[in-house]
């Protein structure tokens, strides 16, 4: 017994070191699994609060750019509205039938208070949280494309798994041919992501637009992501397709959060098919 105590005493710093390293390693492993919500994240009262303060100063310097983005989006929406009004003018009828009406997606706005894009695994912190109706696995988009998927929420803040993360797999398709693929990131350039698993019979050309596919229950179908920059076709399949994002991931401020109101229904149905 005394020997054991002596040994522990002799190696106490080494033991402490090993215990701390194991603790850190457990946190790392837990962090790498997608389905587990993380303990160490920036969506808590203290870190979120500090980022919020720092961002309110930083935001001031981006007012011009934000205004630009807003007016661009405004112009696009006005164009859409104009087209709608035109079609109504031709047909000129009114349908009042609330049972026919249904809303599938619900949008709400939030602000990015911390954005990373240079690391291998990037996360974004938002200034809204569970109090504002946010839950994990909601999509985050802005006027130019998709940003990521919400991973952790606290009362007032949320962290987003950015598309610039090795754990991010988002279902996308070619705009003109409905061939599906998966959007991933190789960690090299934050303006360029990759699409994998595009079937070989798909015809891909440089300059083709990539949009979100309808397969995931998170994003609405058809949100524009980027254009094909270049690709490599070898051994009868697409090895790699590089996508130039519409979004400049280094300069994003205001975002919208997409909530799929039919998600439970869709997921339950899909589960029941799998279980049979």
């Amino acid at each position, binding site marked *: 017994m005394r020997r054991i105590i002596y040994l522990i005493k002799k190696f*106490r*710093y*080494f033991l*402490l*070191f090993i215990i*701390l*390293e194991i*603790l*850190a*390693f*457990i*946190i*790392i492993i*837990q*962090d*790498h699994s997608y389905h587990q919500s*993380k303990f*160490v*994240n*920036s969506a*808590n009262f*203290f*870190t979120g609060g*500090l*980022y919020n303060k*720092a961002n309110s100063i930083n935001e001031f310097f981006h007012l011009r750019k934000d205004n630009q983005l807003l007016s661009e989006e405004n112009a696009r929406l006005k164009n859409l509205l104009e087209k709608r009004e035109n079609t109504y003018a031709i047909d000129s009828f009114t349908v009042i039938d609330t049972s026919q009406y249904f809303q599938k997606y619900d949008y709400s706005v939030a602000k990015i208070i*911390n954005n*990373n894009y*240079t*690391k*291998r*695994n990037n*996360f974004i*912190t938002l200034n809204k949280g569970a109090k504002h109706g946010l839950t994990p696995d909601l999509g985050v988009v802005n006027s130019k494309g998709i940003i990521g998927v919400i991973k952790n929420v606290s009362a007032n803040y949320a*962290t987003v798994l950015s598309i610039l993360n*090795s754990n991010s797999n988002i279902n996308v398709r070619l705009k003109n041919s409905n061939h599906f693929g998966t959007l991933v990131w190789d*960690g*090299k350039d*934050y303006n360029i992501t990759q699409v994998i698993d595009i079937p070989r019979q798909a015809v891909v050309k440089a300059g083709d637009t990539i949009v979100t596919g309808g397969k995931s229950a998170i994003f609405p179908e058809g949100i524009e992501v980027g254009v094909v920059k270049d690709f490599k076709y070898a051994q009868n399949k697409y090895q790699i397709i590089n996508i130039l994002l519409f979004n400049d991931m*280094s300069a994003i401020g205001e975002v919208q959060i997409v909530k799929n109101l039919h998600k439970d229904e869709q997921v339950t149905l899909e589960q029941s098919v799998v279980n049979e």
Partner: protein
Amino acid sequence: MNNLVLNNTIRFIALLFLQVLIFNHMNIFGNVNPMVYITWVFLFPFRKKRSLLLILSFLLGISIDFFSDSGGINAFAITFIAYFRLPILMAILRRPDLDYGQFNLRTISTNKAFLFIATLTLIHHFIVFGLEYFSFSAILSIISNTILTSIFTILICTLGIVLFTKKK
């Protein structure tokens, strides 16, 4: 003694905030963010009892992790260099024992202090990037990131130590 506690408390908080608010968003050449918080390990008083250094280093690392959503990567790396700080210093100084109490980085020659900082920084950065990429196929990215970021970290740390500590 009280002065020492106060000094280190301020340094802990200052390094944490500097790192998460300024240096994490620097993006030199597009993607280089110096990790200056490890200055903590270089400047923490050298003592025979190392448990306080280990625990506080771990706490600083995990705080950085909370802010940058990086799991426990920074905690792991900084605890590692905190433990191996003394053996590496002994190896560089070629001395069997230290004169604890009086010793700090400014009492040894500049070359040796620089070598000490550079070695620890390289080890720390290699661990951080290794755990971040977590695959052998990305070894080239890991090494290039380690070297590039280390250069800036070493520069800024050395500069900071020269400017903010007194020469004895």
